């Protein structure tokens, strides 16, 4: 079954400070949508609003035309999975137990054989079988991230939200995790929404890119159309060069921060003149 996610004039304030202002967006089926933007621009808040971790006004998040704020939380968690930026568990759980938590929305009284099967298959899919009986807190951040993604996948969601899933990882794990997401979107028609910092990874793996600036959508579209030198300068305040990478995707090379006084702009002009 396919689900369509529509965001309609979504706004959100922490106490009096507005974080999101009238965000409109439609997410297509089976696409990877990356959200990029400076720190504090509202990326994480946006994800949390979609997932009802933060409460929003009625009729701002629609799933297949239905108001998400009226859907029972348990039902919603069968549709949407969420992978937070950092995960720690107060008490030690084994990896298997951790992934098993993803079945929580589907459990009525006790677990069925089917639940165990889904958990085992998910772990197989992510290649973390060997970790099954290890303790979560003893794993490396890359392994932990995979476990948390496995937990979200065990929910069997149709929409998966991830908050900077690659921020603490080495290049190998970054590629592995993003490939998993790509595979998920293509083979299981799951819509994936990822908040990211790394513009080049976002450019490489997403179907569409959304640049968010001070709580508003600045630009949305294919990586080619959105990742331009002008856009990056006006959103991040950073001069950059955008070239075509070996993988035929736009590649951003940040050069210098424009807001940082004379010293920096001298360097900038030196660098840019060399390359011209």
């Amino acid at each position, binding site marked *: 079954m396919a689900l369509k996610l529509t965001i309609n004039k979504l706004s959100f304030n922490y106490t009096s400070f507005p974080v999101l202002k009238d965000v409109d967006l439609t997410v297509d089926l089976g696409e990877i949508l990356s959200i990029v933007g400076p720190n504090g621009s509202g990326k994480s808040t946006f994800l949390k609003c979609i*997932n009802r971790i933060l409460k929003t006004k009625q009729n701002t998040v629609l799933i297949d035309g239905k108001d998400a704020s009226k859907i029972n*939380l348990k039902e*919603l968690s069968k549709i949407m999975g969420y992978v937070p930026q950092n995960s720690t*568990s107060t*008490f030690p759980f084994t990896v298997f137990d951790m992934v098993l938590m993803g079945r929580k929305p589907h459990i009525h009284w006790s677990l069925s054989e089917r639940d165990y099967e889904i958990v*085992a*298959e998910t772990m197989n899919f992510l290649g973390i*079988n060997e970790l099954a009986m290890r303790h979560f807190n003893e794993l490396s951040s890359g392994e932990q991230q995979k476990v948390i993604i496995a937990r979200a996948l065990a929910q069997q969601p149709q929409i998966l939200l991830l908050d900077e899933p690659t921020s603490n990882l080495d290049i190998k794990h970054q590629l592995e995790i993003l490939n998993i997401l790509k595979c998920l979107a293509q083979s299981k028609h799951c819509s994936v929404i990822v908040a990211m910092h790394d513009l080049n990874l976002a450019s490489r793996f997403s179907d569409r890119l959304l640049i968010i600036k001070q709580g508003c959508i600045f630009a949305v579209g294919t990586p080619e159309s959105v990742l331009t030198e002008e856009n990056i300068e006006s959103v991040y305040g950073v001069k950059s060069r955008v070239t075509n990478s070996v993988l035929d995707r736009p590649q951003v090379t940040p050069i210098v921060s424009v807001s940082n006084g004379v010293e920096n702009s001298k360097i900038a002009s030196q660098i840019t003149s060399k390359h011209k």
Partner: protein
Amino acid sequence: MSTAAELKRLYHKGKKRKIIVILSIFIALLIAVLVSVSLGAGSPGFEAAIRVIFSKIFPFLNIDPGSKLTQSIILDLRLPRIVLAIIAGAGLAASGATMQGALRNPLVSSYILGISAAAGFGAALAIVFGIGVLGGVGSYLVIVNAFIFSLLAMVIVYGVARLRGVTTETVILAGVAIGFLFSALLALIQYLAPQYEALQAVVFWLMGGLTKASWEGILIVFPIVVVTVVLMVQQSWNINVMSMGEEVATSLGVTSKRVLTITMVLETLATASIISFTGVIGFVCLISPHISRMLIGSDHRFLIPCSALVGACLLLCSDTVGRLVLQPTELPVGIVTSLLGVPFFIYILVSKRRQSWR
């Protein structure tokens, strides 16, 4: 796919191990009961005790129950005490495990909501001034008062926490604050107590003990503890999910505030009903969950029942030692639990490599 099936088998093997551990603790508890019932002031030993119990359970077997005195020692003195020790230990430890899980804090015990101080205040009010909130005479005045004030503490804590949104932090802070408030009121009563005897009685009550165990008391406490502990176990999935934090819990369809409220109510009912009869018995509710976590891990489906059994064992053994060690007088169980439990706890703390909390 063979690996997925293997994985499932591996998990079930681990699960079986946990069940075996729980069963072993249960057997240890049974042995403790047999030892405890055969020892103590008065003559009856193991054989006499067994004979009395079997003649009561299976009257059709026509076993000679022995003399009236023997029967009375076993049935009216030793057994009620043993049964109350088991119920109290189990209830307190299960509450402790539940609260540590729900509040995501390994330092929490079932007294975190200020219950012990409130119960102490209620009891002192009855002992010193004979003031009861509800009717009741004699020892029941103390029991009812202690119970009512425990509930009152929980209601105040919940009310305060609610003003700032029911989160783990607000509940713990409000609980500590209300605990201090009732401690101060308790101290005030002790300071103002007109007679020395009353003061002594308050101190004695606060130490906690199982000396006043009776079948009537057990009839009241037993159903409350059984029902609340079963309901706690029913919350175990929610508590598991909550240990990953409120946001993750929400994304898995669990409303933390609701679970926190439910566990608070259950924990208070169990703890309050127990300590109104026994006085404040500390430590069991803090240490049993940790021992259990080291034995079988953090999955609350197994942890809560395991804690209950460990708590029952611990309290029963402590009480038995307390009864025997200074014959003909005895040591209050609260003192013995700490004296025995702390070294044991420290031993497993240093001997286990893996931490049972973060």
